[in-house]
């Protein structure tokens, strides 16, 4: 007859490794002797012994654990020393707390700034292209520069411009001032985002004379239209301009990340005097991103009028272009704060300037 499995396993599990075979062997031997008289009584005896032995078995295991016993002694000694020198103890504790806090803070910032991609489909491949002009502040470029760059930036799969602001929404309920951005048609292709309902912007939407269209955020669609799919195709007035709703963005989409969720994106015709910011998405995987400046140097030469200005007039501020890989946290405040993974800048007036097409 075999001993009851559960208490036997319990004893084996609780006992220290060096005592396991000895204790279980004693119990098995006594069980076999008792089972010859009464099997039921033997099983009951085994259960009683196993359960009643739990506290003492655990104490024995604790004593056997030399490491833990040593650790306990160390802790007691440390407490005695700390009680004896409270000033030193306070200084040590504060130092360790500061060290841990600073380390945690640095790691959090580095992770957010350098490693966490933007929350878009192309989040790890989105770059902000900026122009540096010593005589001017801000990271936006003129519309004409954007048009010129769009035709020359072959290193990128898509390029888009956007400008922020707010628009007055009328035509549905009470008039309301909403955060909104005006974008070029490829904006969602750059980010790798597709509307949840309806369609994105098409190139035809930006042709002069085309009807104005808008893509709403999920929050605006839910709040102003009750999440009614029939809102697609409806015409509303955006700052007095009749505009057709063509799509609704996925829930949770924010641009910039963590921005006010009630914004809409409008595809429109930028006035030539209007400055835009540029975001681009890289053509290859993020692993190739560090090679970006080299290709950029070959492909960006600047619009002819820029080159002409800087080359012809000595002393004119040079224009420089560079791309910033954007991380989640810093995109929000300003493109200028983006982390520049390619710190090398290209100067159109550099003597090493490549030969640019006419």
């Amino acid at each position, binding site marked *: 007859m075999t001993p009851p499995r559960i208490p036997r396993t319990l004893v084996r599990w609780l006992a220290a490794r060096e005592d396991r075979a000895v204790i279980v*062997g004693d119990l098995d031997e006594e069980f076999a002797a008792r089972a010859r008289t009464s099997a039921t009584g033997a099983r009951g005896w085994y259960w009683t*012994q196993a359960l009643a032995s739990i506290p*003492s078995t655990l104490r024995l295991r604790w004593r056997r654990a030399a490491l833990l016993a040593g650790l306990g002694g160390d802790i007691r000694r440390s407490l005695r020393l700390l009680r004896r020198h409270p000033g030193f103890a306070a200084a040590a504790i504060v130092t360790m707390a500061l060290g841990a806090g600073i380390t945690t803070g640095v790691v959090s910032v580095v992770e957010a700034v350098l490693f966490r991609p933007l929350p878009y489909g192309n989040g790890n491949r989105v770059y902000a292209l900026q122009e540096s002009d010593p005589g001017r502040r801000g990271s936006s470029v003129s519309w004409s520069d954007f048009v010129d760059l769009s035709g020359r930036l072959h290193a990128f799969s898509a390029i888009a411009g956007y400008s922020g602001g707010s628009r007055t929404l009328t035509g549905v309920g009470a008039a309301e001032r909403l955060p909104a951005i005006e974008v070029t048609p490829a904006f969602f292709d750059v980010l790798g985002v597709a509307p949840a309902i309806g369609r994105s912007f098409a190139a035809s939407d930006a042709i002069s004379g085309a009807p104005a269209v808008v893509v709403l955020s999920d929050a605006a669609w839910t709040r102003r239209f009750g999440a009614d799919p029939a809102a697609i195709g409806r015409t509303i007035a955006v700052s007095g301009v009749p505009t057709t709703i063509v799509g609704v963005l996925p829930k949770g989409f924010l641009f910039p990340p963590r921005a006010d969720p009630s914004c809409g994106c409008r595809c429109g015709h930028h006035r030539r005097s209007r400055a835009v910011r540029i975001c681009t998405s890289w053509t290859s995987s993020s692993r190739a991103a560090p090679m970006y400046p080299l290709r950029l140097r070959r492909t960006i030469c600047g619009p002819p009028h820029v080159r002409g200005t800087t080359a012809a007039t000595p002393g004119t501020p040079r224009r420089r272009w560079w791309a910033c890989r954007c991380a989640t946290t810093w995109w929000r405040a300003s493109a200028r704060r983006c982390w520049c993974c390619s710190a090398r800048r290209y100067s159109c007036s550099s003597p090493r300037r490549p030969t640019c097409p006419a």
Partner: protein
Amino acid sequence: MGRGEYLGEFEQVVLLAVARLEDEAYGMRVREEIERRAARRTTIGAVYATLERLVSKGYVRETDLPGGAERSGLARRFYEITPAGKSALEEARDLQARMWSGLKLRSGGRRS
């Protein structure tokens, strides 16, 4: 006997059982001996925990030997009292004798 190396009551009982069993002193036999002579129910875990303390104090030494078929080949741990253990037992006995010497316990509770 140094400071902190006194014999507890149960330790004394277990050490006496080991001394009585001589070559047959292993865990379950020690437990049975205590139950038989002292009419005191105890568990195998408590016996082994006490024996480990006695080993660490140097009052007994342990030897593991392979077990027979009746215990599926699991090892059996034999204990043997050491000279220090014998001295501790004698000292505990003498201490008790000195404390009992000439003492007559009054029956009837506290003095009024």
